């Protein structure tokens, strides 16, 4: 990339900073907007996550690891769905493909976790180049169907014609993961200071990769690429008119998101020491769509939460005594409620709450606590009135009467 856009970004950022006049709300806003702070927040988040999860939410470290893995997958998927506006229904190709590639690589070439991770990701990128090249010729629903088709093709390929490589329906079992950098046992425990937070090395490894992935996604989204992706999402035609090579950027978005899927897929193999054939099935592609939408499309952190919540319901809620058997239904209800209440997902809801709180703090500082309380009261009354109005209009809407 040339220096020009970056300098311009820098100027814009300084300007934004200059507008900040101090105060907690503004300082928080400017901290949040800086890239390094995003990375720091992620570090803190993944560091305390297993402790909180295990102690307060009935969780266990292995599930926490899996949540991060799917989180990476979802963050990458959101670059495609949320930022570029392309709905792919075949991302299992890259997740499962990378998982198989990583497994086969570990069994026959090298068992070094870093090399395995690299091999799986490289395979996903290669596949994305081919699949993207063929399916991005069409937009909208046709694109979704084409990717779905490629996904199912790869599933059936792995199931039988390539069974000599993939071990068919039994899944690939000969995964062999060695020590990290030759010394650290990745499936072993952790040294002293870390034991306060987490109990196994695998989580640490996955957490580090997660932080790097989030940092990378953040960098991409703040680069000129990110701007172009959002321009394409808004209006592809206009982007083309302006002189952007739209097709090329769409392919790049596709490949980038597949690379994240590849990282996740390889980690999945490293984590489980096994590759199920299921990882290529279309439900896997569907899962990632649900996770991303649930978490919040078009946000960096949203998909991480979406992946977490999905897996939580699938693994923890499903173990509850009475509700357990209905976990699919619960997931469906959560999904519907989330989408109706917060069209921008959980993260959209969080941001909404945050904006409201900030606005409230600012208002209180400017007008004093009394005015703020009065305003809050007025607003509540208004809201309640609106809800009552809505409920009263239901019979009219249902029966077409004039009951207003």
């Amino acid at each position, binding site marked *: *990339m*040339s220096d*020009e*856009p970056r300098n*311009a*970004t820098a*100027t*814009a950022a300084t*300007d*934004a900073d200059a*507008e900040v006049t101090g105060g907690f709300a503004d300082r928080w806003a400017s901290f949040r907007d800086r890239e390094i702070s995003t990375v720091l927040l992620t570090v803190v988040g993944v560091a305390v996550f297993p402790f909180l999860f295990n102690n307060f939410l009935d969780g266990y470290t292995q599930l926490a690891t899996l949540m991060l893995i799917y989180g990476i997958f979802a963050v990458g998927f959101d670059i495609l769905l949320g930022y570029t506006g392309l709905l792919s229904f075949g991302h299992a190709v890259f997740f499962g493909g990378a998982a198989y590639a990583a497994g086969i690589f570990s069994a026959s070439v090298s068992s070094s976790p870093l090399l395995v991770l690299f091999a799986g990701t490289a395979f996903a990128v290669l596949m994305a180049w081919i699949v993207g090249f063929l399916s991005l010729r069409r937009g909208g629903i046709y694109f979704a169907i084409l990717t779905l088709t490629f996904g199912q093709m790869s599933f059936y390929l792995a199931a039988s014609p390539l069974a000599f490589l993939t071990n068919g329906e039994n899944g690939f079992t000969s995964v062999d993961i060695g020590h990290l950098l030759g010394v650290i046992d990745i499936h072993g425990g952790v040294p002293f200071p870390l034991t306060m937070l987490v109990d196994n090395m695998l989580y640490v490894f996955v957490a580090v990769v997660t932080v790097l992935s989030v940092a990378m996604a953040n960098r991409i989204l703040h680069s*000129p690429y990110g*701007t*172009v992706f*959002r*321009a394409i*999402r*808004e*209006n592809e035609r*206009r*982007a*083309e*008119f*302006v*002189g*952007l*090579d739209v097709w*090329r950027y769409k392919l790049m978005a596709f490949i980038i998101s597949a690379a994240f899927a590849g990282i996740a897929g390889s980690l999945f193999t490293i984590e489980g020491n096994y590759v199920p054939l299921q990882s290529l099935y279309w439900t896997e592609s569907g899962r990632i769509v649900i996770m991303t939408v649930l978490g919040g499309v078009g946000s960096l952190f949203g998909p991480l939460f979406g992946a977490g919540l999905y897996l939580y319901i699938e693994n923890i809620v499903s173990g509850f005594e009475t509700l357990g058997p209905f976990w699919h239904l619960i997931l469906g209800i959560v999904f519907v409620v989330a989408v109706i209440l917060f069209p921008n997902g959980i993260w959209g809801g969080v941001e909404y709450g945050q904006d409201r709180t900030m606005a409230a703090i600012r208002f209180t500082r400017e007008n004093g606590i009394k005015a703020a309380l009065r305003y809050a009261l007025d607003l509540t009354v208004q809201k309640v009135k609106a809800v009552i109005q809505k409920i009263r209009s239901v019979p009219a809407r249902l029966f077409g009467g004039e009951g207003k």
Partner: protein
Amino acid sequence: MTLLDVDNINGYYGESHIIQDVSMSVDDGEITALLGRNGAGKTSTLRCISGATPPDVRSGTIQFDETDITNDPPEDIAVRGISLVPEERRVFTDLTVAENLHLADTVRNKSNTWRRKLDFRDEGMSTEEIYEYFPRLDERRSQKAGTLSGGEQQMLAIARALHQSTDLLMLDEPYEGLAPQIIESVENAIERISEDGTTILLVEQNAVAAMKIADRCYVLDRGQVVFEGPAEELQNDQETRDKYLGV
């Protein structure tokens, strides 16, 4: 000197023959207006020039600065120094003012396309010059373009195009949907840009406003050129004005 020379082009949307033997030339440093009623083929002609498909140009040639650009892809045509301000809401409303301008940097960047062999032949206006030109945009750098007024959005669209290149600026209906006093300020901006040496091709339905600032005019009707000549000539040609422009 002729900067853009369109020679007998025929454009098609599928089987419908939408541009019929259109010839026009745009001289260096001038403001040329392309007028006509809704559906006369004005925007289609612009699309032909900028390389957007459809329409496909099946015969005729388009030359820019003595290079044949007929049927080149839009990103290549942009490189040669032709920048377009498309019609309707012409900016990316989800992006900030600064980000909208950065899109031009991206277009100028070599990595915008894998096919390109050429460098941008034109410097384009620097961001600082742009903000000097349009102080309103300077104040709103980190604001989303969707929150700007119609006139400001139009200014931003023009600014983006100028940041990309200043050789030939093609404006598609810049006055559409703007209040009269805002039209005036856009007009002033266009004249100022022209005085600073940028050649302008202005496509407009609002013939009265366009004739005010244009040097030469072309009138299109049903895909054919029915009038060409200096703006004053069109001003005085009541018959053409009645028949094709309704003014």
